[in-house]
C-alpha cells in the first residue's frame, strides 16, 4: 500500500485536474439523480392538477438536469482520460529513470519477462485514477449530496439514505475485491500450470508425436483444464452470491426509505409530492455505488503492480560512478586481472581468476562453451556489471575510478542480443554516433554487406524495421548491430558472438572486412566458433565451471 501511495502522488497541477474530474463526474451523477427526482416530483405535483405554468418551471428544471448530465459526463470523460494519459507518460519516464541503472546488472540473463512485466505494471498503474480513485471520490461526494438532499426533505430519510448508501459503498467493494483476490489465489497456480503445459506441449508437439505421447498429453491437459474449471465454478458462484447480496442491500435501502417516507406523509410531516422524489433519489444514488466493486478490484490490481514496480525500482544500482572520476589517458590497454564473477554470494562462480589484455590494433578471441559466462564477461569489461573479484583497468586505471560514460566511450560492447529498435535503419545506426556522416554510414553498411539490401528497400535507410526488427532476419539484425558498432568511435570493440546467425562464408567475409576496418582498434571477439577465433592473433579460453 505504501508503494501505491508513492505511485499515486500527483504534482500540484495534476491535483487540480483530479479535483475537476471528480467534480464533473459527481455533477453528472447528481444531474442524473436530479433528473429522476425532479421528474418524480413533477409527475406527483401534476397529479394534483396545479396551474400548468407552475409545472413549466419544474419541466425546465427536468430538461436542464437532462442536458447537463450528458455534457458533464462528456467533459468528465475527457478530463479524466487526459489525467490518466499524463500520469501514464509521467510514470513511464519516472520508472525508466529508476530502471536503467539496474539493467543488466540487477537482472540475470533471461530477465526479458521481468522487463515485460515491469512495462505492463507501469502501464497498469495509469488506471489508478481513471478506474479506482475517481469512482471512489465521486461515490463519497454523491453519498454526501444525496443524503443532504434527502435530509432537507425529511431528516429521518436523510439518515436512512446515508446509512444504506454508506453500508453498500463499504461492504460491496470490500467483498468484491476480497473474493476476487481469493479466486485469483486459488486459480493462479492451476492457470499458470495449464498455460505452461500448453505452451511446452505445443512447442514440443512434434516430439510428443514422435514419442507417441500425444494422447496422454491431451488427457493430462484436459485434467488440468477440468481442475481449473472446477475452481472457476466455485469462485463464480461465490461472486454471484456477493453481487446478489449487493442488489439485496440496494433493495432494502429503497424499502426502508420508502417506509420512512410513507409514514411521514401519513403523519403529515412530508408533502406527498416529495415521496416520489425521495424514492427516485435513492434509486439514482446507487448509480454512484455501482462502479465501486470494479474500482476496488482495480485498486487491488494497481496495488500489486505498484508493489512489483517498487520492488524493482527501489533496488540499488549495482554500478555507480565514483564521486571524483579519473580521466582515462586514451592511450593504454584494456586489461582484466584475476577477474571473478558470480550472480550472488550463494551462487557458484561463473569464472574466476580470468586474465586479459587488449592493446590498440590487437585482435583477441575468447572461446568457451555456452552458458559459461562469456557474455557476462563482456558486460564486465564495459562496466555494465561489477566483478566480485579482481579488476578491469583501462589505461591502467581501475574502471571503478572512472565515469561509466568514459569507459563506454572507450570500450564498446556489441552484445549477443544487441537490440534493433523499432525505428528507421538510419536511426538505428546513428545511435552509435549522432553526427556520423552519410559516407561513414554507407561504409559501415558495406562492411557488413547490408548496403545492397538497404538500396533495394523502397525507403532505403528510412525503412522502419518493425518491432524487434521483425522485418529483418536474425542475420540482418546482427549485421546491422555490427555496422552500428563500427560507427561508434570507441578504441576497443567487444563483439559478443558476432556471427552466430550468419552462414560460414558470409561470416568469414564480414569478419575479415570488419577486422580490416578496425586496424587501430583493439577487438575482443567472444565466440564459440573456432574458425572465427583463427582470425585473431590470440585465443583465450573460458572453461565451464560446472560438473559435466
Amino acid at each position: 500500500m505504501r508503494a501505491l501511495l508513492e505511485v499515486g502522488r500527483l504534482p500540484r497541477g495534476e491535483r487540480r485536474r483530479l479535483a475537476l474530474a471528480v467534480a464533473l463526474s459527481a455533477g453528472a451523477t447528481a444531474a442524473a439523480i436530479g433528473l429522476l427526482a425532479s421528474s418524480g416530483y413533477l409527475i406527483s405535483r401534476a397529479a394534483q392538477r396545479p396551474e400548468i405554468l407552475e409545472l413549466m418551471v419544474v419541466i425546465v428544471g427536468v430538461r436542464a438536469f437532462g442536458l447537463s448530465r450528458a455534457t458533464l459526463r462528456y467533459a468528465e470523460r475527457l478530463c479524466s482520460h487526459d489525467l490518466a494519459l499524463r500520469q501514464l507518460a509521467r510514470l513511464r519516464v519516472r520508472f525508466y529513470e529508476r530502471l536503467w541503472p539496474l539493467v543488466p546488472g540487477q537482472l540475470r540473463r533471461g530477465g526479458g519477462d521481468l522487463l515485460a512485466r515491469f512495462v505492463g505494471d507501469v502501464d497498469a498503474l495509469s488506471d489508478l485514477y481513471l478506474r479506482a480513485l475517481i469512482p471512489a471520490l465521486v461515490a463519497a461526494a454523491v453519498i454526501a449530496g444525496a443524503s443532504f438532499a434527502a435530509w432537507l426533505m425529511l431528516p429521518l430519510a436523510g439518515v436512512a439514505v446515508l446509512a444504506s448508501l454508506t453500508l453498500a459503498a463499504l461492504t460491496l467493494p470490500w467483498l468484491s475485491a476480497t473474493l476476487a483476490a481469493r479466486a485469483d489465489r486459488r486459480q493462479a497456480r492451476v492457470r499458470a500450470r495449464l498455460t505452461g503445459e500448453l505452451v511446452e506441449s505445443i512447442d514440443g508437439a512434434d516430439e510428443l508425436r514422435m514419442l507417441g505421447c500425444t494422447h496422454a498429453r491431451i488427457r493430462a491437459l484436459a485434467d488440468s483444464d477440468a481442475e481449473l474449471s472446477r475452481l472457476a465454478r466455485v469462485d463464480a458462484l461465490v461472486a454471484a452470491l456477493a453481487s446478489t447480496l449487493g442488489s439485496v442491500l440496494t433493495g432494502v435501502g429503497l424499502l426502508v426509505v420508502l417506509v420512512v417516507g410513507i409514514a411521514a406523509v401519513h403523519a403529515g410531516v412530508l408533502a406527498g409530492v416529495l415521496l416520489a422524489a425521495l424514492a427516485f433519489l435513492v434509486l439514482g444514488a446507487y448509480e454512484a455505488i455501482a462502479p465501486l466493486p470494479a474500482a476496488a478490484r482495480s485498486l487491488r490490481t494497481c496495488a500489486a503492480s505498484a508493489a512489483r514496480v517498487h520492488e524493482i525500482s527501489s533496488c540499488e544500482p549495482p554500478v555507480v560512478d565514483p564521486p571524483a572520476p579519473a580521466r582515462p589517458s586514451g592511450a593504454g590497454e584494456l586489461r582484466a586481472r584475476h577477474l571473478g564473477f558470480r550472480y550472488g554470494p550463494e551462487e557458484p562462480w561463473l569464472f574466476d581468476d580470468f586474465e586479459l589484455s587488449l592493446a590498440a590494433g590487437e585482435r583477441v578471441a575468447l572461446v568457451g562453451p555456452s552458458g559459461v559466462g562469456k557474455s557476462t564477461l563482456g558486460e564486465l569489461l564495459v562496466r555494465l556489471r561489477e566483478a566480485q573479484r579482481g579488476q578491469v583497468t583501462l589505461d591502467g586505471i581501475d574502471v571503478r575510478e572512472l565515469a561509466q560514460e568514459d569507459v563506454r566511450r572507450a570500450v564498446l560492447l556489441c552484445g549477443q542480443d544487441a537490440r534493433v529498435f523499432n525505428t528507421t535503419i538510419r536511426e538505428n545506426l546513428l545511435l552509435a554516433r549522432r553526427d556520423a556522416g552519410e559516407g561513414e554510414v554507407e561504409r559501415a553498411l558495406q562492411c557488413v554487406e547490408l548496403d545492397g539490401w538497404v538500396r533495394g528497400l523502397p525507403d532505403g535507410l528510412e525503412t522502419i524495421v518493425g518491432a524487434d526488427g521483425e522485418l529483418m532476419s536474425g542475420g540482418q539484425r546482427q549485421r546491422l548491430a555490427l555496422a552500428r558498432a563500427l560507427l561508434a568511435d570507441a578504441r576497443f570493440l567487444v563483439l559478443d558472438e558476432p556471427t552466430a546467425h550468419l552462414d560460414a562464408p558470409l561470416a568469414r567475409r564480414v569478419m575479415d572486412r570488419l577486422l580490416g576496418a578496425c586496424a587501430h582498434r583493439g577487438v575482443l571477439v567472444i565466440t564459440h566458433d573456432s574458425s572465427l577465433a583463427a582470425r585473431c592473433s590470440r585465443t583465450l579460453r573460458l572453461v565451464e565451471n560446472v560438473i559435466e
Partner: protein
Amino acid sequence: MPAPVDRRLLRESRAARTHLTLVGALALASAALIVAQAVLLACIIDRAALRHASAAALEGKLLALGAVLLARAAVGGGFELSAQLGASRAMSELRGRLARRLLGADGAAPAGGPAIAGAATGGPATGGPGSAGPAAIRTGELAAAAVQGVDGLRAYFAGYLPQLVLAAVVPAAVLAWAAAADPIAAGLLALTVPILIVFMVLIGKGARAQTQRRWQALSLLSSHFLDVVRGLPTLRAHRRERAQAGMLAEVGERYRSETMATLRVAFLSALVLELCAMVGTALAAATIGVQLVDGALSLTAGLTVLLLAPELYGPLRQIGQQFHAAADGTAAAARIYAVLDQPPALQAPASVAAPRLATSRVAAPPRAAPPRAAPRVASPRRAAPGLGTPRVPDPAREPVRLRAVDYEYPLRPGRVLERIDLELAAGEITALVGRSGAGKSTIARLIMRLADPSAGEVSCGGADLRAIDVERWRAQIAWVPQRPQLFAGTVAENIRLGAGDADAERVREAARAAGALAFIEGLAQGFDTPVGEDGVRLSAGQRQRIALARAILRDARLLVFDEPTAHLDETGAARIAELLPALAAGRTVLLIVHHPQLAEHAHRLVRIEHGRALETPTPAPATRAMAVLA
C-alpha cells in the same frame, strides 16, 4: 456489431449456444421483474402520496415489492453466474480444440511453422532460416498467443454476449408495457430508440475505426516503452540511456495530445447517446405531467412509465461500454481460428484412402488457402484399419526412399524441396549437409511423417508411408531435434517419455550411453531433479544429452539426428560424435549436420542445396571410421 467470427464462435461451439439460451431465459425473467418493480413502486407512491395511505395499509404491496426486489437480485446473480459458467465452458471447449489441433491429436497437425508465422506477422522471413526447426519455434509463439487469446474471450462470453441479449430483451419488454400504460409517452420513448440505435451503429462503425486506432496507438506506445526497456543494454553500451528519458516524455506527450484529439470525437457519440436518453426521459416526464394535469392519466401509470425509462436506455448504453470486450474477443477469436484453420500436415493419397476419408470429418476449409494447399484431412488412425496393410516395414532392414519429392508449405508460395530423390540404405548412416534453410530438416520431417510431400512419394521397403499406420511407423523412430524440448517433470520422467514402462535401471543405462550420467548425478536430486520451466536450467549440451538418452531408451530402428551439435562447443560436439558409432550399430541413421566431425562417420554424404539433393562422394575418413566399427 457481430462480425463473422462471432457468428462462427456461436455456430461451432455447443457450449456457447447453451450458454446463450440460458442467458436469454434469465434476461426474460429479469425484464418481467423490472416491469413488476416499476408497477409496484408506482402504485405504492400513488397511494401514499395522493391518498396518504399508511405503511400498514400498503403492507401487502410493500411486501410484494420486497419480494420482487429479492427476486431481481437473485435473477441478477443467476445471470452473472450463468454468464461466467458459460464463458468457462466455452473457453474450456475452445482450449481443448486448440490443444488437440496443435498437438495433432485429431490427425491433422498444422502443416508448418512458416505458414502460420507468416500469416500472423505478415513479415517476410527472407534470409531467415526456413527450416522446420526455428520455424516451428515461431509456431509455438503464435500458439501461446492463441492460448492466451482464449482467456481474452472471457470478457466476450461473460460480458459482451449476455449484455447483448439483455439489450435485445429488456428494452422491448419495457416499451411494450409502457405503451399499454401511456401510449403517448411510450411513443416518445420509442422514437428515441431508433436514434439511439443509429448512434450505436455509428459507435460500431465509425467510432470503431477510431477506437481501434486509439488502441493501436496505445499498444504502439506501450511497445515503444517495452522496446526501449528491452534495449537498455544496447542503449547503455552506446551511452544513449539518458537521452531516451527525454524521448519517452516526448512520445508520451505526443501520444496524449493525439489521443485527446481522437477522444474528443470518439466520446461525441457517447454524448449524443446520453443526450438522447436524458432528453427522452425529460420529454416523457413533461408529457406525462401534462397528461396528468389534464386528468388523462393515473399517477400510477405515469410513474410506471417514468420508472421504466432508465431501464429502457440502461442496457443499450451498457452495450456501448462493452465494445472493447467485443473487439478484444473477436480479435482473440480471429487468432484462435488462424490456428484452427491451418491446413493439416498429413494427407492421404487419394488412391489409397479416398473411399473412407472423403467422407470423414473435414475441418472447415480455410478461405485463404489455395486449392492445392488444402488437401483432405485424413485421420491416419482411422485410415489404417481401412487400408488392410497391417505390415509396417522395418527401416533398419529395408531402405527408406524419397522419390521425386516436392514440398511446399501450405499458404506460402515457393518450394522448400524440389524433386528430391534420396535413399537411406538400411543399416547405414546417411548424412545430409547444406546451409541452414536448404530443406534438410524438412526431409527428416517427411521421413518421420510429421508432414507429407506435396508431390512424389516417401516409402520404406516399397510401401508408401501414407499407407502405413502412422503411430506404428513413428514408434520405430527416435529423433533428437535441434533444440530438444524438456517437459515439466523430473530428469527421469523426461528420459522415460515415450517409453513409459522403462525401469530406473534402463533409464540410468540410457543416460550413461548418452554421456549424461555424470552431470545428472551431479545435480542436487539426481534423476529426480525437476527440469523444464520451473526446474533447474540446463545448458544446451545437457538438454541435448537428455534428448539423446530419451532416443536411446526407445531402442528405435531409425535414428534421426537434426544438427545434434549445432548449439554445442567443440568438446560437446566431439562427445556426441564419439557416441555415434555405437548408437548406429544395427540401425539406420539419418544425420543432419554442418559439423565436419560428425559427418566423418557417415557412409554417405548428400548435399542439399536450394531444395535439391546432390550426392557427394563418400568421404574417405568415413570409410575408415566404419571399418573400425565393423
